[in-house]
């Protein structure tokens, strides 16, 4: 009886909170979201402000894509 040890493995509830393990979905939503949001804003600018045929949308999508990549690096990078 005296030699009885508590279970060596700690109960699971005490484990430290894990890092966000659904990073893949987050990364995809940043990439697509970036292009959609800023491409969309660019489209609005094209359509209602400048009357151009899509130059602002193109620039917006590029900026949005770059911002999405930057966000992934900041949020998900080590």
């Amino acid at each position, binding site marked *: 009886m005296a030699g009885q040890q508590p279970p060596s493995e700690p109960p*699971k*509830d*005490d*484990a*430290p*909170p*894990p890092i*966000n*393990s*659904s990073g893949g*979905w*987050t990364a995809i*939503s*940043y990439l*697509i*979201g*970036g292009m*959609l*949001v*800023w491409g969309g*804003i660019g489209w609005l600018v094209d359509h209602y402000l400048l009357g151009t045929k899509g130059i602002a949308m193109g620039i917006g999508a590029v*900026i*949005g894509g770059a*911002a*999405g990549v*930057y*966000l992934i690096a*900041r*949020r998900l990078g080590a």
Partner: protein
Amino acid sequence: MTGQTLTVLAADVPFPPSVEDFYLPSIVPWGGHADTWFTKITLMLWLSVAILIIFFMVAYRKPQLVPSKKQWLAESIYGFVRNNIAVDMIGKEGVRFAPYLATLFCFIFMMNLWGIIPFFQISPNSHIAFPIILALISWVLFIYLGFKKHGVGYLKIALVPPAPWFILPILVPIEFFSNFIVRPFSLAVRLFANMFAGHMLLLVFTLGGFAMINSNALLAPVSVLSWLMTIALTFLDFAIIALQAYVFTVLTASYIQGSLAEGH
């Protein structure tokens, strides 16, 4: 003889299948198309709820130290969601979300499972209304939890990434879009599209077999191959059914974890 029977059966098989095939005639009133108060989909929804309630009540009625088969199954399902999803994703605090996550997992799994149960063979989740409501519940939950835990500061945690101030105007709209709009949308669409495509595939291979044997008797071997593919695809569908229930639950848990996490 068999060929004749098949031909008679296949006489008015519509091909290719269309979205119309997802809108089945209603049960009450019988065969109606406009007054759809109670359809097969409704029936399966209530059956899912009833089956889950009865199963878990019976399984836990007289809990024993050495569990019976039913109790073992119920405990395994709950234990899996509690330990492998709730605690693994959210951490120590996850235990209090285990009931919600387990309910979500079982309900989605049961609703998806109708897609391959003989004579039912369509999942209610192939109508986007069901995934939308489920996604909305999870969406409201994680936003509510965020505000409850951090107050208004939740907006800063959710929307403002660690970045120099002059880039923030570009980043904040993306964060808003990705965290509050894409999340519920992708939850709903992922589940819906998988169930829709699964049903569509089975329809194409089943009805396609009939269509081919109908048009030319020489195509009969290909028809048989098509029906064999239906059986194989049913097994594939089962894997997708379980996987989608798991993915929905895991992502919900991950969003809850994001709301509860300390600031970055």
